[in-house]
């Protein structure tokens, strides 16, 4: 996974994505890519993985960090 390592912890890219969501609130994948400088395809793939890991949730077509996600980057 590009954003979560096999131990279930966010990678450096994962942390960037989670921090962007924490700092900006509800965000589109495009906004996350713009804020973090991570390529859009990697953001989309990472967000998918982080939804599966319950670190991120989807609200309509945007993304939000979960409590579990916030705890992981504290």
């Amino acid at each position, binding site marked *: 996974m590009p954003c979560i390592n096999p131990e279930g912890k966010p990678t450096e890219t994962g942390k960037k994505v989670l921090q962007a969501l924490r700092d900006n609130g509800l965000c589109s994948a495009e906004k996350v890519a713009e804020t973090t400088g991570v390529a*859009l395809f990697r953001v989309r793939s990472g967000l998918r993985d982080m939804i599966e890991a319950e670190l991120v949730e989807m609200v309509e077509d945007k993304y939000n960090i979960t409590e579990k996600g916030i705890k992981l980057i504290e």
Partner: protein
Amino acid sequence: MEEYQTKPVSLPRLGEKAPDFDALTTHGKLKLDDFKGSWLVLFSHPADFTPVCTTEFIAFAEIYPNLQKRGVELLGLSVDSLSSHIAWARNVEEKTGVKIPFPIIADLSKEVSLAYGMVHPGQSKTETVRCVFIIDDKQIIRTILYYPLSTGRNMQEILRIVDALQTTDANGVATPANWNPGDKVIVPAPNTQEGAEERVKQPGYECVDWYLCKKQL
């Protein structure tokens, strides 16, 4: 080999939607949809840790910033495992100092290779040949190149094709043989007699005849 020769194989064609995939890569699981909105150069190579492919990967890594400037992402593929791809990319960096910045699909099941017609049994029954698919931001296949196992690809040609396609899209023109950015482009030929008569008198156009006119963008 017989099995391949007798089975009808459906190959993607220009102007068609690129086949979807959901693939394991060196940058995690990626879907074709993840690239929506960007252009994509999807290319296959025969095998990791082989000489021609290594020179190509270094060359692809070198043009990657130029592709990104044009809104193009790169995605490699071979039927090797993920571990092999990771080990090879690390080896290339260690031995040559060139980091491989783009993802590589580990297509052990050949699901993606077969969907894109990348296995040519006359060349190799087990490896993918050197294919290049240039896919636009709407995920339509715009160019397909096939190179044999023994011939490394020309990166400048890949950049040139991207430039030509993007210039064509932006300006409604075509590009002549050996065109490079900055050269004159071809104006579409008129399709009426009146249009032909007007065309040869049009100022600013360099015309050989009504059907072959160029202009500077």
